[in-house]
């Protein structure tokens, strides 16, 4: 009995790890599905019962790794409110797509009585896989990216959060006259992540 109980208990730290993992696969999926990088620079990886594509481009990995580590840190400190992946055209700098992940953190302490929440990890993985599946499916309605594009990652945090090295203040990079599609959400019982994608209409 005690075994199952500890297995299903999710701490803030563990939840941050799960969400970071989701972002890792989510961002890679978007990069692959939206063809920001050549498809043969990605390798297949089994995860959440899906075959996901993860980049093996050394430069890109070196770019994403510190980013995700910082995100995990902020998640574990309950400071991350939103993560946005902005896709913009290289030449005109115009934002054409915006993947928004709203993060809602439950009131959980880092230690002590109120440090854990109950949720089956299998269930969480199932929910995450549903979101990733939707990201893959979204290619069918998102407009074709005609121009060369690049991406940026924005983070919404509390005002008092210190900006580490490599992080700079930025605007929201909103899209004028955009269409928005709400995707599924998932929750680790500590963090709930709500995904939507906005794109330039016509």
């Amino acid at each position, binding site marked *: 009995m005690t075994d199952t109980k500890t297995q299903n208990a999710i701490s803030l730290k563990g939840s941050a790890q799960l969400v970071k993992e989701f972002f890792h696969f989510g961002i890679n999926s978007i990069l692959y599905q939206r063809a*920001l990088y050549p498809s043969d620079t990605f390798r297949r990886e089994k995860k959440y019962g899906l075959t996901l594509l993860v980049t093996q481009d050394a430069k890109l990995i070196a770019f994403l790794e510190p980013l995700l580590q910082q995100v995990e840190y902020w998640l574990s400190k309950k400071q991350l409110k939103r993560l946005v992946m902005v896709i913009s055209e290289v030449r005109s700098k115009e934002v054409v797509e915006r993947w928004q992940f709203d993060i809602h953190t439950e009131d959980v302490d880092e230690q002590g009585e109120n440090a854990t929440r109950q949720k089956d990890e299998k269930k969480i993985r199932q929910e995450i896989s549903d979101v990733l599946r939707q990201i893959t499916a979204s290619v069918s309605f998102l407009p074709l990216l005609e121009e*060369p594009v690049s991406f940026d990652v924005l983070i919404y945090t509390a005002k008092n959060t210190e900006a580490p090295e490599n992080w700079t203040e930025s605007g*929201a990079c909103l899209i004028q006259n955009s269409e928005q599609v709400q995707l599924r959400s998932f929750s680790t019982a500590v963090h709930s992540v709500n995904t939507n994608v906005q794109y330039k209409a016509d």
Partner: protein
Amino acid sequence: MAFRDVTNGFTPMSTAMRALDIGAGRSKGPGSAGRSTMAIGRKGGASQGLSLRKRDMTPTRNTNIVPNASMVGDRFLGVRMNEDEFDRANHLINHHMHGKKEDSLDTSHSAPNSPKKELTEGDRLKRMLRAKSSGNITDAKEDERILCYKKNLAPPPAVGYVNQAKVLYSVSGVINPASSVKKSIRNVSQTAIKVLDAPGLAKDLYSRHVDWGVHNWVAVAMTNDVYLWNTESGDIKNFFEDSPPMNEGAITGVKWSHDGKYLTLGYASGAVKIYDPNRPRTSTNVRELRTLRVGGGQRCAAMAWRKNGILTTGYKSGDIVNHDVRIHNHVVSAWGGEAGHSRDVTDLQWSADESMCASASADRTAKVWEERFVRSTDNSIIRNPSPLHTMDEHLGQVRCVQFCNFRDGILATGGGTGDGTVRLWDVKRNFQQLKEISICASGGVGGIVFNRAYSEMLTASDDGLLRICRFNASYKISHEIRASAEALMDCVASPNDEILTTDMEETLKVYRLFQVDKSTNILDRMQPRNVGFNVR
């Protein structure tokens, strides 16, 4: 009634059950989220009939704000974090849609709307939905700050990478399925269709003597003089009207602009002069528009135009300079120094999309330069940037470079004496060598021409032979044509894929090697033809 066809069995009962199923089965996890989903389902069930009559419209996929979201199914079903937001949206929609009818006593929602109404309900709804995504709801709140990770520093994909979806769905024909060209027998005429005598043609393998313009005027440089030859009418004109400028030395490079309006000549002194063939002669200059000079540059042989008025020139010193011919201080960037070439630049080519420039040099390397180093944003001169890639595998001087015009992302470089190979590089894969093709054992390769209709590569080499090489898995040489007893110096293609060669015997020859059968659909695939790209 255990088995039944449920495809059309959409009774209110099953809708309600589906809604319940959504709530209970899948999204129960996210705590409050699950409950609100259920609420959406129920609300929809209750007010569905009324709201349908009220709006009389098909909900779009964005209707997750609309109360009757259960109609849309659960594919894009949103999850509201709190009910307040939901109620507010409901209020906004009803408020806007039935703007004037705020009187709570007036319940006749089904009454027809005033005909003076400027916007249809659909427009209003759309406007509201769209405003939501660009309005302040998505923006940061008062107590939030937005941070960006390494702004604009995401590593770019390999240069020349084209979104594959774009290739699939666009009509420009970037990919040309070679398999569709089924040719069992390919007859190549071994004889030239025209032979011209050109006494005075400089016997210099590092010079460019001819260029074929899009208007079918061929410019031929003979030491100090230039002749224009119209290949359609056969007219020949002396460009300088018997008073060629002698003070700059011999002409070492000839180049038409893409549109054929301007002729550019490179001189042994390093001067580059731009001429307008239609300009009347003056007492001092014949048709000259301007002279581009750079300090220390000697002998300019390689020239390449970009479409936006930038002329890229390569000099004997190994320097490559970009000139903006429209402005007074014409030098916009200089590619040289440690990372640049150390000896003569022999050839320059811009890729079809002008994202990169390939240069060949007598220092046994070929280099590829990025477009971003052409011009700086603040009008300063860019000096000595690092090339994108250096190819130093050739065993002799590199005498020519050419981008493939039918297969995306292939660059060919031709080696000079002592090398005699053509090497193919994959631009998209960090310039991996795709293939080394031995062309000529005794000499070098002077010119490479790609043919789109046949997916073939033609090379001109020092042993006087033209060789045609199939672009399939084996890259086998399929035909050899004896063009001269001496070395071939230039090899250029016309807009109609005729081949013009010059050789050490001081003759010009035109070959028609890539004739297309007009009765087949091969011609269709050639439209739109990339005029100018083939022209050196």
